């Protein structure tokens, strides 16, 4: 187990190094961040002074060396745009994104898995065909368009939900969250729903496929021969067997939702990390880009670790293999 963890940490470190090199080379290839940020009325001397001040006149290798040295001493640097420590900047926006991503995943799971089970259990029923049809819409219709439609319908026309922003943030079990206030929940509904649609479609299709395959498997026939009712067969035996691919996809989707919820965040003006990272790319705010990507790699590693541990719980065979 310890060896397994150690291996994962090494992997993560390697990915972080490669990625930071790619970002450095990428920004260098685009050009000098000062040229994007500088005021058009600045003169030549000022431009040169600014470039020197941020060390951008140094060779790329030297710039990277200083960056690596600072990171190893725990300093990821300051944003060039905000002059705030980048981790503080990113983490101040992390709770909003986490809350949105979690709510979206919960909606997708609570709605998607039961619908998928039903569609797999009764593949020929009219209701299943409707579910499958809608699931195709779920991941083929662009998120931004659905988001705009939701705003138009619920905020502008009917006027029962706000069009964007994060509402009043309260405290629940000591954690500041929108879920603690009614106003906060109202603000959360539309963006969370918007973000969940793609995942919902995916989970429906995945669950249905697993169900259909499992329902014709030998163990299901044996269980039925044993005289177990359909409900018991599905919830005690089938669900456990089809859970592994669902958990894998769930983990990956959760990670990508956290890291790249930017479209939904933009349309609903949700104060999450997505908007911050897009702006820092536009202004070539390199410290923020690098720190954000390091955080993303870290998140994926943690999520994958949790997923792997969950496998063990779901399937004892994996546990024994892992232990040996």
């Amino acid at each position, binding site marked *: 187990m310890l060896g397994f963890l150690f291996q994962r940490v090494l992997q993560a470190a390697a990915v972080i190094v490669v990625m930071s090199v790619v970002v450095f080379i990428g920004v260098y290839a685009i*050009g000098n961040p000062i040229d994007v940020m500088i005021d058009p009325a600045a*003169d030549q001397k000022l431009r040169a002074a600014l470039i020197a001040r941020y060390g951008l006149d140094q060779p790329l290798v030297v710039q990277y060396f200083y960056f690596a040295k600072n990171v190893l001493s725990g300093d990821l640097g300051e944003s060039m745009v905000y002059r705030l420590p980048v981790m503080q900047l990113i983490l101040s926006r992390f709770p909003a994104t986490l809350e949105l991503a979690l709510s979206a995943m919960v909606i997708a799971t609570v709605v998607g898995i039961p619908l998928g089970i039903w569609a797999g259990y009764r593949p020929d029923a009219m209701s299943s065909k409707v579910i499958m049809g809608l699931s195709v819409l779920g991941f083929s219709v662009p998120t931004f368009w659905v988001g705009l439609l939701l705003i138009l319908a619920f905020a502008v026309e009917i006027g029962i939900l706000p069009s964007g922003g994060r509402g009043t943030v309260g405290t629940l079990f000591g954690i500041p969250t929108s879920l603690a206030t009614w106003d906060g929940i109202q603000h959360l509904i539309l963006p969370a729903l918007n973000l969940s649609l793609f995942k919902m479609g995916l989970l429906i299709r995945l669950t249905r496929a697993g169900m259909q395959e499992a329902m014709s498997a030998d163990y299901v026939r044996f269980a039925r021969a044993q005289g177990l009712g359909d409900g018991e067969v599905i919830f005690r035996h089938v669900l456990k067997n089809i859970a592994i691919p669902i958990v894998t996809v769930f983990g990956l989707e959760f990670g990508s939702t956290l890291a790249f919820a930017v479209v939904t965040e933009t349309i609903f003006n949700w104060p999450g990390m997505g908007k911050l990272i897009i702006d820092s790319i536009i202004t070539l705010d390199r410290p923020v880009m690098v720190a954000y990507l390091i955080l993303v790699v870290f998140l994926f590693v943690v999520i994958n670790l949790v997923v792997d541990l969950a496998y063990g719980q779901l399937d004892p065979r994996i546990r024994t293999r892992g232990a040996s």
Partner: protein
Amino acid sequence: MKLGYFKTGVAAAALVIGTAFATGALAQNLTIGVRAGPDSIDPHWSTLGSQAEALRHIFDTLVGVDENLQLQPALAVSWKPIDDTTWEFKLREGVKFHDGSELTAEDVKFSIERIPAVTGPMSMTIYTKRVKEAIVVDKYTLQVKTNGTAATLPNDFIRLFVVPKKIGMEARNDQFNSGAAAIGTGPFKFVSWEPKGDLVVERFDGYWGQRPAWAKVVRKEIPNDAARIAALKSGQVDLVNYVPATDYASMQKDKSVDTFIADSVYILNITPNVKETLPKKAKVDGKEIDQNPMRDLKVREAMDLAIDRKTLVRVVLEGLGKPANQLMPVTFFGASKALPEREYNLNKAKQMLAEAGYPKGFELDFACTNNRLPGDAAVCEAVAQMWSRAGLKINAQALNGTVFFPAQQKGEFSLWMSGWGTLTGEASYTYGSLVHTPDAELGLGAFNKSGYSNPEFDKLFQEGQKTLDDPKRRALFEKTTEISMNDRALIPTVILQTVWASKKDSVTFVPRVDQETLAHLITPKK
């Protein structure tokens, strides 16, 4: 039956109370949906337009500007040059900071000296670089010694925000963002802000100027156009800025909103590279040629003649613009009223190209931004098509600003278009940077990447910079404007207009050319 009446009565009463409450709240609070906000609450951190706009609520500048960017008194009530290298500013008496202390010349001196120590990559030193020394004469008099003659110093000081000396040199962005150092003399007091989030301010009762109509103002940053319009339509905000042209068209039929339009300072200008060799050679009949056709004034004139500006405005910008004939609005200091409207004449353009030796035209790449100003990419593509009717093959490339500006700085473009706003309201800001021959010693021509160089222009321009007498300087700058525009050093296309929208009959204000949305200049509509 009785119960029915009772219910109706309650409902009606609730409605009355509800409406009263709603209008009461509206009369006191203003919520604005803005496209962009500040990067910091430190007014000396950045020259970003949206930063200055937001911080004008909390801080005042030494010299003020009206809605057409012409100078007016602010913290300084008057200013005059006392010799070639000294300006004297008389301060307004009895101005209070938000903490109750009084504004003195020491605070202004401190603010000038603080800028080089704390400013960021969008460096505010561009507004103080002419200052050699600030001298406090008495409590309300400040003398500024300049490096050489600085005729436009008061124009530079329209961006000189004044902070109290007692915050000390150590106060930086975090102390301002937390509110500890965010002490100004402005119409509103700072309440809270976070990056990319809401800026909340409340009325300062001790303000020296007109008392603001709003007790509390929230500036919500909503960068996405569709989201900002939705916030207005769903009633989350009272007013939004930067309404896109397509929404403006549909709002004309919408009875629930009012719209406000104004010319902006932003003009889309085309720059032909006139260096001896182009970074990417021009082609005739598909074969590369060594010479640069745009070195010939006839070719530049032909390119100018082929642009149908009226169509650009009417079709591409949906009416939200005006044809431009120079780099600034004609009301600005140094703009020329003698310049004629630009002519559109396709036949003459073809004829001039033939005279210049390009009867079959030539082929060139044409770069422009696609995310900087409304309609920039669309105008770029339309201009390329107009040129193709004159026989030129121009390949329009609309690029993200992140890619465009570094490439422009490196001199990779042969022909390009970008927006420029004369934010100080006078000519030297624009022509000094874009048209003057690059000269690092004089700090001129920093953004002149076209290779244009005209000794006559340079001489008159430098003379203008040193001329303290306003009418004489104005005449010199008008002359330089005419020279460079007749030379087609840059080819202006259209002045962009800005649109605001509010809930029907809720607010009234005078739209500004600098596009700023200032809560203290907005009043509830009676």
